[in-house]
């Protein structure tokens, strides 16, 4: 003989409990859950908005950015990592990247992009370009206040706007940046090691050849008449 309407009263008890406890949930963990908007004006310049823990985490990706290794002061183009190999342009699913190579005075390809545009009205921040880039030149930024009122040119981000310094990358995605730098350092070390090994091998081969040549030169005056039959080892 269940009391009439007891289901509704039980439901109302739940909502009343939520209503009352929302006034006592100081650290807003459960009963008052809204995270207030992290106003950019509150955050210090060139820094993630102050309340980074709420809206933007250390791995959140919004739109791509190009990296350069230079310090803040000098011309970023000097140390840009991108070599305009156009792999990311081909692999980008929504086809929103456009690159034009830079050629110096007499037409030789300088390993740098003259134009590197990303149309952020088309880009869906899917991060495929970061994966396929062999030179770690492009990574994901987590800047989210990008809206502007010019639909045509405002949303086409040019190369200079995309360029960011590596230590800005360390600031927004610390462990990812660290991991990437370690990997690059490791690869460079391996390459040098390989290079060194190759130099050593070449040097050794050169010495060997020089030695053999010297030996050959020394042996030749003795058996001059029988020389034609000797075949070089």
């Amino acid at each position, binding site marked *: 003989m269940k009391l009439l309407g007891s289901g509704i009263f039980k439901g109302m008890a739940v909502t009343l409990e*939520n209503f009352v406890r929302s006034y006592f949930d100081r650290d807003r963990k459960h009963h008052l859950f809204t995270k207030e908007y992290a106003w950019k004006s509150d955050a210090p310049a060139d820094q993630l908005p102050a309340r980074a823990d709420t809206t933007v985490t250390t791995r959140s990706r919004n739109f791509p950015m190009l990296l350069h290794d230079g310090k803040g002061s000098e011309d970023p183009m000097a140390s840009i990592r991108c070599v305009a190999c156009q792999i990311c342009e081909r692999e980008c699913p929504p086809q929103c990247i456009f690159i034009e190579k830079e050629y110096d005075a007499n037409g030789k390809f300088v390993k740098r992009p003259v134009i590197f545009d990303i149309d952020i009205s088309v880009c869906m921040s899917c991060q495929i370009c970061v994966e396929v880039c062999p030179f770690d030149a492009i990574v994901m930024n987590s800047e989210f206040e990008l809206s502007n009122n010019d639909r045509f040119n405002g949303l086409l981000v040019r190369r200079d706007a995309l360029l960011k310094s590596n230590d800005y990358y360390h600031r927004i995605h610390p462990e990812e940046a660290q991991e990437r730098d370690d990997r690059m350092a490791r690869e460079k070390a391996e390459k040098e090691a390989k290079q060194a090994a190759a130099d050593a091998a070449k040097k050794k081969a050169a010495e060997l050849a020089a030695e053999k040549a010297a030996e050959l030169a020394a042996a030749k005056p003795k058996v001059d008449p029988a020389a034609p039959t000797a075949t070089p080892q």
Partner: protein
Amino acid sequence: MIDTLIHILALTAPVAMIFASLFAFTTWLERKILARIQNRIGPNYINIPFTKFRKTFGLLQPAADGFKMLVKEDIVPHGADRFLHLLAPILALVPAMMVLCLLPFDLPFANESMKRIHAAALDNAVLLFFGITSINTLAVFMAGWASRNKYSLLGGMRAVAQMVSYEIPLVLSAAVVIMAVGSLSAQKIVAAQSTHWFIFTPWGLAAFFIFFIASLAETNRSPFDLPEAESEIIAGYFTEYSGFKFALFFLGEYLSIFAINGLAVTLFFGGGNGPWVQAHPWLSCVWFLAKIFGLIFIIIWLRGTVPRLRVDQLMAFAWKFLMPLSILNLFVAAVALKVQQPWLTWPLCALVLYAAAHGLSRLQQKNVGPRTYQYAE
């Protein structure tokens, strides 16, 4: 003659102003309470132009909404019946305003002649109250018909059917109190409740229960907000209204909520009397409003919890549950008033009413109940 006119004006103008400003406050209250029920904050930011000042606890939100409604374009659909489309919101608002003056809401600064006029007006207040609120049904139908839109026609027909069928339990449950007091005048009803309020008698409690549910249906609130069921027929009868006509509909709805809850307070919660009222009579105003806001909190609380009924269930609930219960309550109250020993009548009434309520609800939903589920590995 002229001074009576002035006195009438002095009586009605403050009531209208108080309740109109309370309307703004209630919209804010409703959004804040609903927000807190749903674990969120509710309106709290209003960017006041030219100042950096932002956090205002949302108190300016009703002002912002009102301004937005004023500025918004007022679209009338092509084939709509222009005159009726304009008349409907006015007809929704005017009865609600008129009815507010019938509440026994004695203003502190009233002098003798104003009190006499107020008493005269309140003579058969309850009957006038129901007479005038029935015009609201007309306005809803006019809105539904005039906007020449399938959804609003559906909403209009639903609203008319609902209001007509819930008026009967409303009137019958009020009749119980009128029978107990023996007069239609709000003044006498409030006076009769000076010692104990009617809510504390079993038949009074049952009458209040029926009155409250029927008043929810009358003002299209919470479980009965079928005419404006946004998930089925978008916004029901006021789909095609925008701009200030839409705001008028909302003002009309909130004022009718104040009015019908004001009547509930006079009938069951003893109008203006409460502790310390003899000491300073101006407190009766405060008590009256406090009780109304108590009921409004319950309405908002219900709105945040309970889903909506279907049209046929709504009709079945009115005709097969509320009306028989209110007629039975009439008889039980008559018996209880005849036999004066409270210790005998109260348990008996409570038992009879509860048994009838449970029987009727069992009768309606035979094979509906929570189920158990079996699992497969």
